[in-house]
């Protein structure tokens, strides 16, 4: 089962300057079934990135369980692909080598892993950029490659940490539409972190509103797919759902 379950997850750390314990995440439980797209929204400091970092294994949890693919996990692993806000592409590798990196670590041979990488690049319309270095790409292209690199390693769960926060508004809308298209085509299990409410509503099947380290509410997003911004702009249901989530976030 390519699903993600977290039970009673918490994170407490000691702040040596304030000389006290700070609770960043408190008793968060969440279920992302196989093939589901779940978004976590909340204001900055609500603990959403901390949750993602614990799931990814970058930070140890203070309490609770993280279960991926029916197995309890701790520490980073290829079963949880991560897409970073900073794109985190290796500057010294070409786009093709970046995307082929996961398969390379699995021991896949050169020819086969380049084939895998080319397939995934084609999926995102990036075939023409295969031989270029990341610094030669626009911000939007870099993020696309970041998503493709994570997907090409075929993780059980894809963790996305505000991946589109640092690209311009027009590019962001294109990237969001592409992501929904890729999600529909491949149906990866995705946990998406963002502070952007319309983004969360546009992308996800379910939006989890987080406040002060706790789950405030979960909102089902029953919008039809495929979703496009042209259609959503005038969609009453989209407006109602966005307004509802926005209210929750602002109250948070």
């Amino acid at each position, binding site marked *: 089962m390519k699903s993600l379950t977290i039970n009673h997850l918490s994170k407490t750390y000691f702040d040596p300057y304030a000389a006290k314990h700070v609770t960043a995440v408190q008793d968060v439980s969440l279920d992302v079934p196989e093939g589901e797209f779940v978004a976590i929204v909340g204001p900055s400091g609500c603990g959403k990135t901390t949750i993602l970092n614990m799931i*990814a294994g970058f930070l140890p949890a203070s309490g609770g369980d993280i279960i991926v693919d029916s197995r309890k996990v701790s520490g*980073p692993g290829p079963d949880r692909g991560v897409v*970073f806000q900073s794109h985190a*592409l*290796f*500057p*010294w590798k070409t786009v093709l080598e970046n995307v082929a990196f996961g398969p390379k*670590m699995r021991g896949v041979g050169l020819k086969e892993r380049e084939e895998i990488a080319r397939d995934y690049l084609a999926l995102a319309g990036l075939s023409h950029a295969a031989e270029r270095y990341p610094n030669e790409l626009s911000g939007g292209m870099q993020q696309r490659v970041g998503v493709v690199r*994570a997907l090409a390693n075929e993780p059980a769960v894809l963790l996305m940490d505000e991946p589109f926060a640092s690209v311009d508004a027009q590019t962001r809308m294109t990237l969001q539409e592409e992501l929904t298209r890729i999600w529909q085509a491949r149906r990866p299990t995705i946990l998406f972190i963002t502070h952007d409410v319309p983004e969360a509503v546009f992308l996800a099947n379910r939006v989890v509103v987080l406040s002060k380290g706790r789950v405030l509410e979960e909102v089902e997003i029953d919008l039809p797919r495929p979703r496009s911004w042209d259609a959503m702009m005038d969609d009453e249901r989209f407006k109602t759902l966005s307004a509802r989530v926005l209210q929750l976030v602002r109250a948070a």
Partner: protein
Amino acid sequence: MSEAVAVNPALRLWSGYLRLVARHPVIGSVVPFLPLIALWAIVVEAGVFPRAFFPGPVDVFHSFVDLTRKGILPAYLADSIVRLAVGAAAGMVAGILLGLLVGLNERAHRALWPVLLFFQAIGDIAWLPLLIIWFGFGLETMTFVIVYTVLFPVVLNTVLGVRSIPLDLHRAAQSLGAPRWRILTEVVLPGALPNIITGLRNGLGYGWRALIAAEMIVGTSGVGFMMFDARRAGSVVEILLGMIILGLLWYAVDALILAPIERATGQRWGMVAR
């Protein structure tokens, strides 16, 4: 509309020169020296100083041909270059390994960083009195000086490079399934490479100067020895020849080794300014 403006002949000449240099970069590195050499020749020909005291470019060139024909210059030059290459290679390998350790391991960093800064400040030449007592006038002393000189810039820059790799790149590699030793070869080494090359560039530059100084004091061969020996004989022309060779050799090292490596790595990857 635009062709109505007549182009100034000087501008036309300048534009022709730029196009020529673009096609043959060597010309661009030679031409700036021509006024310098001309000025030198003029001062010499004006007879302001006695010729033996201040020889001209032609005299230096004759000396170059003469010493090359006798085989002295090639032999000394080879001695100096081999010493530099061997010392630099040893200093570089030790420097990169130590730099990786200090850069990656917090405890090693705490323990060694202040010590490294301390010894870096003690200039290579400052070791000479002690080294002469320990090893005498010879190869050991010179090798120590070069290794020491190359080591510190490489260590310090490697540490800087390792520690400047964004945390997200480590995390990305881990999430893509890279085990620790693969992160070393796939992330840490290439990520630190532009800085390592900067360290090498500094190290070689300092090392080259340190070697010449060491050869002057403890050498029995080499370009530095040749220059100091020429002083004893009062041969200004050989001293000038030695100085020019030092400059030319560094120019060659830069153009043939360092610059191409930099173009193919950090500059290509957009990690350092062009």
